[in-house]
């Protein structure tokens, strides 16, 4: 082995506290060291040229650069070595700046430590082996999970760029929460008017394959090469035969089921299309409500269907899709106060679920929406009366660690302002009251919007909390405090709307586990870096966008969806991917096939494999690492009882050599 050691002064940074010349001299005599030099700036052009010249002339087979942190310049020096024909994985760095010169001011001790650090690196590099980057092919086809506005945007962007997209939606129609909103802040444009054309685009796009009423069952594979199993739930309607005429749902006798789309504010039949603009505009039978499916009695829809599209024998189907990248856009739900358990249990004082006229923000959206159960006329749920006084309460379940979530739900300040405006525009003699903690209206035209609600539409804003809501003869008595006035106050209201916290949609934790991505204590999916990698996750090829990552409004969700789409396109712009070769490998000769590593691997990157002879007879079983999936954490190395797994770049030999150099 011919190792070159290059000690950098980093100007004064290292040289001030470390005697670099002395270091270079001490290292020169180590076994295997061919040359040891020090220089003012190793990372500079002349510094790198000098290294390259030494590699060339000294026929170096290994390199140690004693300078800053490997997180800073390891790539730089590996590139320089590669340019000279030396395998980049034969380069190691000794961190004598951050871990030595910058933290120790006793020159003698710092110099001695620097020598130790370099000796460790030299010991390691002696055990290094050339490694080649791993190449994996890319399936240029993406999956988007969730068909709300974020999923729709991501799917359209990717498809418009020329790649195929598989869009998986849990509900019978795409559209998500946005399809149910009345009008949107801060422009008050109609939500459906802007969303439904995009839904149609998705439905008609030649490169988008839509699986509605479907859920992701399992995810296998790795970046560029995922195999996703999708469960298509039994719809009991053959959507290839159905033409969406409506004869079935118009005749269905089971009319009293609460509509999910209306958040329980309206009713639907057992065979139903969630809303008229649904994509696909094909019905589905609710297996919990249909008497034919439950008791074998009825079947009116099948008799009315002229195309024979109804199939009561329908079964769930499992299908597999090959994709190269996955975008999770599973969205949110509102904190279901009164029903939620554990940390979210609280707010019994607001009587949500006890009093019919205490509703949440999304329910209010439906009763102001022109497409809603009241046709856009504001009527309260209990008796259909037009409410003349409405109280809106902000921060219910959010910004409240004691009985809800600690985070700010972000969109409520804005939609509450919007609600007060919509209410005033429809009930001119009505009065809206808002109890708030702070008004958070950061965003383009947002603050102006809130001012309009207060100044033009006369919403009464009270800074304070509500302590209790009681009901007397059909009237809600809201007791709260206005901390700016400094007085307790009581408002008689006909309707109370709670701005409940946004929480991630149900089942997101199990999806995250299937995708092998992280989620926080509330269940929001974790991005790879909060600032610099906001849509990537810690699993390569899996991206997140929209409210499944954190509370977000529509503009932000859409922007993030386009960002995720751009990341997918970056991935698909290449025909194959290269990955760091610092991955684990099993010695199949010594593997005892206990498969502890298979269970321990955080990436499910190790499989159980058979070794057979030419006749196909089993010789032995062994663990086998899939290098495409392995992220190189090395957990398997520490787990393996027979020491049959090793991690390239951090092999047992390398690590022990380093420890042994410390004598």
């Amino acid at each position: 082995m011919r190792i070159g050691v290059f000690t950098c002064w980093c100007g004064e940074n290292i040289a001030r506290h470390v005697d670099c010349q002395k270091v270079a001299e001490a290292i020169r005599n180590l076994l295997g060291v061919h040359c040891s030099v020090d220089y003012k700036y190793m990372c500079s052009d002349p510094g790198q040229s000098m290294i390259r010249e030494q590699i060339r002339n000294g026929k170096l087979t290994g390199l140690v650069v004693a300078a800053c942190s490997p997180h800073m310049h390891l790539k730089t020096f590996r590139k320089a070595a590669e340019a000279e024909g030396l395998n980049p994985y034969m380069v190691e760095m000794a961190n004598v700046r951050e871990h030595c010169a910058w933290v120790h001011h006793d020159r003698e001790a710092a110099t001695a430590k620097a020598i130790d650090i370099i000796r460790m690196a030299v010991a390691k590099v002696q055990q290094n082996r050339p490694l080649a980057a791993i190449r994996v092919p890319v399936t240029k086809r993406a999956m988007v999970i969730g068909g709300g506005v974020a999923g729709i945007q991501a799917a359209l962007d990717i498809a418009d760029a020329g790649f195929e997209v598989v869009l998986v939606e849990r509900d019978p129609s795409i559209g998500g929460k946005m399809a149910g909103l009345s009008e949107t802040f801060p422009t008050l444009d109609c939500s459906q008017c802007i969303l439904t054309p995009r839904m149609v685009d998705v439905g008609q796009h030649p490169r988008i394959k839509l699986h509605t009423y479907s859920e992701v069952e399992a995810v296998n594979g790795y970046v560029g090469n995922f195999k996703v199993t999708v469960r298509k739930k039994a719809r009991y309607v053959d959507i290839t035969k159905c033409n969406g005429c409506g004869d079935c749902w118009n005749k269905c006798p089971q009319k009293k089921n609460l509509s999910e789309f209306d958040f329980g504010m309206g009713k639907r039949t057992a065979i139903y299309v969630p809303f008229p603009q649904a994509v696909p505009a094909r019905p589905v039978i609710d297996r919990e409500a249909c008497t034919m499916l439950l008791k074998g009695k009825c079947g009116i829809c099948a008799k009315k269907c002229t195309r024979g599209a109804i199939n009561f024998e329908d079964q769930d189907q499992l299908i597999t899709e090959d994709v190269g990248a996955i975008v999770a856009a599973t969205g949110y739900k509102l904190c279901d106060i009164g029903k939620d358990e554990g940390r979210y249990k609280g707010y019994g004082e607001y009587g949500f679920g006890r009093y019919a006229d205490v509703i949440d923000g999304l329910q209010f959206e439906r009763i102001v929406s022109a497409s809603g159960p009241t046709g856009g006329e504001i009527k309260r749920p209990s008796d259909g009366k037009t409410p003349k006084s409405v109280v809106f309460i902000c921060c219910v379940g959010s910004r409240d660690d004691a009985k809800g979530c600690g985070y700010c739900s972000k969109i409520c300040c804005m939609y509450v302002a919007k609600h007060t405006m919509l209410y005033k525009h429809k009930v001119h003699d009505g009065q809206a009251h808002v109890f708030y903690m702070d008004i958070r209206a950061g965003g383009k035209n947002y603050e102006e919007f809130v001012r309009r609600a207060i100044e033009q539409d006369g919403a009464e804003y009270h800074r304070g909390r509500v302590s209790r809501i009681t009901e007397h003869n059909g009237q809600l008595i809201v007791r709260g405090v206005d901390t700016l006035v400094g007085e307790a106050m009581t408002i008689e209201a006909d309707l109370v709307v709670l701005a409940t916290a946004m929480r991630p949609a149900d089942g997101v934790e199990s999806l995250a586990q299937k995708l092998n991505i992280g989620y926080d204590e509330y269940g929001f999916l974790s991005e790879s870096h909060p600032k610099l990698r906001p849509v990537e996750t810690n699993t390569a090829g899996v991206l997140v966008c929209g409210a499944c990552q954190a509370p977000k409004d529509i503009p932000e969700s859409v922007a993030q969806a386009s960002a995720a789409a751009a990341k997918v396109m970056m991935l698909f712009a290449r025909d194959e991917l290269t990955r760091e070769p610092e991955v684990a490998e099993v010695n199949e000769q010594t593997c005892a096939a206990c498969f502890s590593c298979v269970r321990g691997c955080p990436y499910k990157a190790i499989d159980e494999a058979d070794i057979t002879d030419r006749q196909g007879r089993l010789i032995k079983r062994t663990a086998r690492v899939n290098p495409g999936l392995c992220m190189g954490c090395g957990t398997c190395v520490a787990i393996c009882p027979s020491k049959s797994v090793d991690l390239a770049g951090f092999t047992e030999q390398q690590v022990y050599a380093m420890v042994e150099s410390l004598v």
Partner: protein
Amino acid sequence: MQIGYYPGCALHGSSNDYERSVRVCLGRLGMELRELDDWVCCGATAAHSLNAKLATALPARNLAIAERDGIDQMLAPCPMCSMELIKAGQALAASDALRREMSEIVEQKVSGATGVLNLIQVFQQIGLERIQKAVVQPLSQTKAACYYGCLLVRPPEQLRFDDCENPTSMETIIKALGAEAIDWNYKTECCGAGMTMCNEDTVLDLAHKILTDVAAHGANCVVVACPMCHVNLDMKQADVERRYGVTHRMPIYYLSDLVGMAMGASGAEMGVDRHYVVA
């Protein structure tokens, strides 16, 4: 079955009807009460608003006696007492230093390990099934408004008992007796408590609100599990009626009264005849 019993000042004083009721009722359910030897006041509001050390030391002394006598579970029918005992017990269990300090002050070793229960929790421990089996006279005519007041469920972090804003545990027991539990507004509002001494107007106002709402929701009696609530709703009811010019005539029962009566105990036996408002 035996359980420790901490009566507190009220049950040996103005609310001795509550004590009689608890003893008779639990006795019929086979529960023997072992009164804590040489107990002292829990400190109540007076101690915790003036002197934090005293507010821990008083209950700590009671807990120390319980530990010494091998009582691992103790009923404190007054919510103020149970709250103070639980709070002190938790503080003791959490801090080594406090245990040492308090052991020194009360001159006995104290660890805070004794479980302190309110009346509802004791019924829960006995179990609905056993209570149901013991019912001989289902209270089919009773429409009860369960009134928890403030201290039975608060502070929630420490008591960890029921939903502090919309509790339902008392209702569950009432229903087991064959009675109807009506839903109403002021289950956990304050009755005015000790204000009854210094600011009677406040108490009368609060009591009036509570009594009015109870009636408006169709109840024919109120059930409480707190001596203070009982005083303010029962003893003060005549004052409320006089002040507001109304007739409430709303009987106020302790939870143990109703359980006892359903099991066939007589009102007189349990001190119900000592209530001011007669059913």
